[in-house]
């Protein structure tokens, strides 16, 4: 088991390293000079001296492999950026400074990550609860009106783009009826009630759309499990329906769903940019988008890396969990 975990983690680290090298290379291999970008589009401001000053200040005058090394070291132990009188201290986890406004990138990430976390975890609760319970009832009441309605709704929901669903919610609940106000993010620590009420729309939008996929999945899994012998045995020996379906069958059916949920969570944590854009939140995804449009590469680099960490960590976790839960998985 330990060997399996270590092997998975090492493999994941190598992937992460490759992601960082590719991302770093992509930004710096291009001939655009970051220093030129930084001094802005405004004409004639960028004298060669000024560009040189910026380069020194950002440490861009060093060879690219050295810059990469510095960058990676900075994440773990912090570093000093630039040299001479322009040197600045950047404590760990150092992700550099924004090209545009010189703000530390770690600070920007720290400010926007909670927004994305709030959206994703809340939505995940909605889609798991809604999806699994609908899927399960649907499987137990197979062929009834409820089942047909659920299957139809989830078919439609799985094709509904959030580009339409989000604005529809806004039109229906905010602009035309005024049931909800336009969401404004408040940190959880500041005011939990305001936080939750701002999150209602994104939670529902993302959660409902995803629950369609999970309901289909849960229904299929449950139907398969219900036809297995152990379920019949459990019923035959006189266990109550609720115990058989709610505990024995559900536990068997839920494993693959948890796997997919883990991977989805990892992918979403990297940014739910469309949800954020539609509902006007500045989360990780929106920050990355704005930074990319401004060619503010340190921020983009940081968000790509962070998102990759989430995806890879979720992958490893799911693999390991799967091996723990399902003894049939061969380790190797």
């Amino acid at each position: 088991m330990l060997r399996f975990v270590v092997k998975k983690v090492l493999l994941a680290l190598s992937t992460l390293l490759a992601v960082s090298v590719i991302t770093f290379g992509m930004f710096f291999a291009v001939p655009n000079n970051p220093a030129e970008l930084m001094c802005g589009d405004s004409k004639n401001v960028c004298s060669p001296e000024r560009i040189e000053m910026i380069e020194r200040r950002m440490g861009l005058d060093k060879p690219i492999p050295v810059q990469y090394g510095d960058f990676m070291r900075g994440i773990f132990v912090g570093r000093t950026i630039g040299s001479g009188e322009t040197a600045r201290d950047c404590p760990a986890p150092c992700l550099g400074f924004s090209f545009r406004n010189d703000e530390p990138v770690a600070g920007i990430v720290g400010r926007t990550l909670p927004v994305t976390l709030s959206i994703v975890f809340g939505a995940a609760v909605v889609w798991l609860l809604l999806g699994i319970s609908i899927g399960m009832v649907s499987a137990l009441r197979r062929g009834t009106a409820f089942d047909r309605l659920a299957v139809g709704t989830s078919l439609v929901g799985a094709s509904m783009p959030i580009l339409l669903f989000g604005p529809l919610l806004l039109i229906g609940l905010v602009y035309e009826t005024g049931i909800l106000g336009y969401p404004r993010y408040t940190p959880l620590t500041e005011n939990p009630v305001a936080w939750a009420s701002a999150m209602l729309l994104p939670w529902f939008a993302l959660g409902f759309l995803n629950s369609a996929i999970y309901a289909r999945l849960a229904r299929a899994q449950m139907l398969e499990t219900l036809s297995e012998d152990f379920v019949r045995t459990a019923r035959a020996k006189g266990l109550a329906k609720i115990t058989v379906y709610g505990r024995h069958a559900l536990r068997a059916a839920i494993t693959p769903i948890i796997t997919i949920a883990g991977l989805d969570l990892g992918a979403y944590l990297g940014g739910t940019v469309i949800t954020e854009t539609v509902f006007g939140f500045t989360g990780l995804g929106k920050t990355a988008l704005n930074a990319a449009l401004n060619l503010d590469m340190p921020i983009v680099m940081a968000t790509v890396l962070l998102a990759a960490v989430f995806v890879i960590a979720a992958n490893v976790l799911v693999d390991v969990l799967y091996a723990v839960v399902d003894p049939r998985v061969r380790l190797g």
Partner: protein
Amino acid sequence: MSEQQIAAQVGAVAAEVGPVAPMPEDDVPEGTSAAGSGTPAAGADGFVGRSPGQLAWRRLRRDRVALVSGGVLIFFILLAVAAPLVARLYGKGPQERFPERLDRNGFPLGYAGVSGEHWFGIQPGIGRDIFIQVVYGLRTSLMIAFTAAVLTIALGVVIGILAGYVGGWVDAVFTWVIDLALAFPFYIFCFAFVPLAVNQFYGPRDEVSPWFRPALLVLIFVLFNWTISARLVRGQVLSLREREFVEAARASGAGLGHILFRQLLPNLWAPILVTFSLNVPALITAEAALSFLGIGVLEPTPDLGRLINDSVRYIRDVPSFTIVGGTTLFLLVLAFNLFGDSLRDALDPKSGR
């Protein structure tokens, strides 16, 4: 689902296809192996021999959902292909403006500007006809999605077949590359990649060629999506390569190319077809999302995602604008998904009936 990595979605669906029953060609009566057409040869004892293709076609024809969604698809595709003709019949071009139909604040006169002249109304501010924008938008979306899907499948199939059949270190490298591709966050990578690439090829004040961004999108989609079909094909090949017909081919001295593309590939068309038909809607969604975010297709190229982006600014006053663009996108994706599901059921020999 729209924000999920398209990968996850298509992968999950494709995985359900499962191993397809082998279709050794000698099982099929001479002349009936072509999908669809031809009368099945009746056997001596009343059995009717049908090729898997014919079976699938018959199932598909009897499936009402498949018929409706297929009809809707054909309608959309025709509309997109014939967009210039539609524009001529309709009498308005995609770039034509009708400022006389707007009031002083740039809002359309009447309810959203809908009239016999302008079926879906007038775009606020800029004064373009929305119907013709939608028609041309369909054209852009479908063109990008289809091109990307075809290239994705082609690349995925070649790499998947090779990795699955050759195995060894080729396979190990391939698996690692897949993990790498899956680790890249799709949307954020696009944000990083597209502006850089545009910046690389064009200066800040240069005119960007109208095909450049669509081509870039196709490139990114292929880069991110080939892994899904490749993984699927690889899985199938892993079991197929142990079968007798492959061994027979090898024993009679067939070359690698012959085994891969003449022996293995014909056994893979069912999962490939299903993956393709479910890949297209995922790509349409992703393309619309990127254009919505201002990363994909930009002004003045008509596009559904871009149209929705234009519309959300006026969502308070002209909600119908957003609804029209979004609903078109939704119907397109829904029709593709339903048809893909039906196709999967029809091609699955286990689904009886």
